[in-house]
């Protein structure tokens, strides 16, 4: 498994990469142009530079951790509300393990938030990335 083909260099033409299109999630091909500029294209024709691919993967990583945080926090909330619901006598049944799971889900969410707090995504010099604007009109 690789992200960039091991023999990638100008002149080798398009090769399959190990990463996917940030827009449509299809496989990306990559070729090296000019002095080594990497140009990624997917089946339908979305195209990216290496910088854009890196930015997209940074963004996807953060988005995915937020999705995990949401899952942990929803789980915690659901368990808390179920415990409360049962305490009100609205439903019968044991809930002994629920409190322990609720506590662990709370800790998991906090740990995941700490991952993002402490993380330092790659930064590029120069202007803002095209993905976030740059329109003149």
């Amino acid at each position, binding site marked *: 498994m690789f992200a960039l083909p091991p023999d990638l260099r100008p002149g080798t033409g398009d090769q399959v990469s190990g990463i996917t299109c940030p827009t449509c999630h299809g496989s990306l091909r990559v070729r090296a142009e000019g002095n080594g500029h990497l140009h990624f294209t997917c089946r339908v*024709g979305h195209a990216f*530079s290496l910088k854009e691919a890196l930015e997209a993967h940074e963004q996807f990583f953060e988005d995915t951790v937020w999705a995990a945080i949401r899952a942990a926090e929803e789980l915690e909330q659901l368990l808390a509300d179920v415990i409360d619901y049962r305490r009100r006598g609205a439903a019968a049944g044991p809930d002994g393990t629920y409190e322990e799971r609720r506590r662990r889900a709370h800790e998991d969410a906090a740990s995941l938030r700490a991952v993002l707090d402490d993380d330092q995504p790659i930064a590029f010099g120069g202007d803002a990335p095209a993905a976030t604007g740059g329109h003149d009109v």
Partner: protein
Amino acid sequence: MTPGPRRDMIVIGASAGGVQALRRLFGRLPADLAATVGVVLHRSPFAESMLAEVLQRSSRLPVSEPKHAERFAKGKIYLAPRDHHLIVEDGRLLLTRGPKEHYTRPAVDPLFRSAAKSWGPRVIGVVLTGSGDDGVSGLIAVKTAGGMSLVQDPAEAVHDSMPETAIEQDHVDGILTLDELADALPRLVAGGSLPSQSRRVDVVR
């Protein structure tokens, strides 16, 4: 002077800072320029704008957003409309809602790539001010097909990363200010060569 190859298809790409740059350039191009000029300026796909009218006010050459499959002519400037790539074919301009490149449509690369494919050595590709990496691959395609690759001097560009990246990633033929471009383009179209003082690839920045 022995005339060089005929170069009568000029393609220009710009992003942030591009309106000012294009107005400056168009304001200095002669009314009898014997070349077709295709332009992509990054713009919102969603916002209506008076961009063609704004550019026209600074230009002696007529500026328009072409219709799909419109036949193009020399001495005219064709601007990619919002939300469409501008594609050059044999004698016609196509407007497509093809895949976004570098998250943008219109994008510079499809214009440059299509011009290189149909018009090869007759193409002059020009990358102006802008941020991001659009235009780099297209300019390499122009050069690979025998065309000429020019960039705005990054020192002059409001946003320098587009011309800067183009310079880093390929051996561009010339690095010129907007005023120098306005002088050089008609001469190149007429078969002349670049002024010798124009900064070349080996500029170390």
